[in-house]
């Protein structure tokens, strides 16, 4: 495996963890967009440019957009409900 491929795998792992540890939903939508962008670079580096293009359009644009649009509509619930 080439150095670039190893590097992008590490970046994807780090970004995936960052998505989980971002607890504010609006901020999480932005982080997941960045994560989607990294995934598309990963697909590109593993010689799947078609999948990479789909990933950019869906993972980095459409998905965060839908999350943000849904969030904009819904009232904020009281915090600390999930944690116990």
């Amino acid at each position, binding site marked *: 495996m080439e150095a670039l491929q190893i590097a992008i795998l590490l970046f994807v792992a780090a970004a995936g963890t960052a998505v989980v540890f971002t607890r504010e939903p609006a901020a999480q939508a932005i982080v997941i967009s960045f994560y989607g962008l990294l995934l598309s670079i990963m697909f590109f580096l593993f010689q799947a440019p*078609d*999948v990479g*293009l789909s990933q950019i359009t869906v993972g980095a644009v459409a998905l965060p*957009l*839908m999350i943000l*649009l849904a969030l904009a*509509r819904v*009232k*904020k619930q009281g915090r600390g409900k999930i944690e116990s």
Partner: protein
Amino acid sequence: MTRRVRRIFFLLSAVLLIAVFWNGYSKLPPVGALTGTYGDVVNAITVPERHITDAVTAVNFDIRGFDTLGEEFILFTSVMGAVLLMRRQSDEPGGDHEDRARDRVVPNPSDAVRVTALLLVAPTVLFGIYIVAHGQVSPGGGFQGGVILSTAPLLLYLSGTFGQFRRAAPQRLIAISEAIGAAAYILIGGACVALGGSFLQNLLPLGQSASITGGGTVVFIDLGVGLEVSGGIVLILLVYLEELMEEKEG
């Protein structure tokens, strides 16, 4: 569940996951060294027999075109579902839902955002059409180009108002074009049967390789998918934004 129990549970499952994952991963062939013959066959026939230089498009829209038909209708059905759920019913009380955020302040986009978004509208449309039209030549195609195209009216909304979004993309027109795009796939497949071939068999003259006219029926399937995907995403954006806008007014 206390913190301690949760941590033990997590560690146990993490160890199990790593063991199973490593077992599978260590037996994978190295990157780029697959032993299957499918890839070789596809690479050998796409250019001479289909006049398509992007093998992925040849696989998606021709060699296993029927699967892609199913995939396209997954998107079509989800869009229909979303539109159906979000539709305004005549007996629905206006603007009074308990989960609705009332006190949210919607900040106006800054001038920098508005100008950038406005400047990006035309290049986005052009780039989307380019990606749709060149599916047979280079990476991309109807799906990717369709999503890119669907962001153009959104940029218009970012740089202006929702009214401008709606004028650029009237809901009825978008719904009709989405339906035409979806129907095109089946009609092309059916036309192949009517002409004496099998469903989605590539019967048209193949045209020239590495040009946007190469690939026979794939060109038209690609355009249909582009229309369907861009229409579908814009339709979802429209119903979502409509819901938000009503809240603003109410």
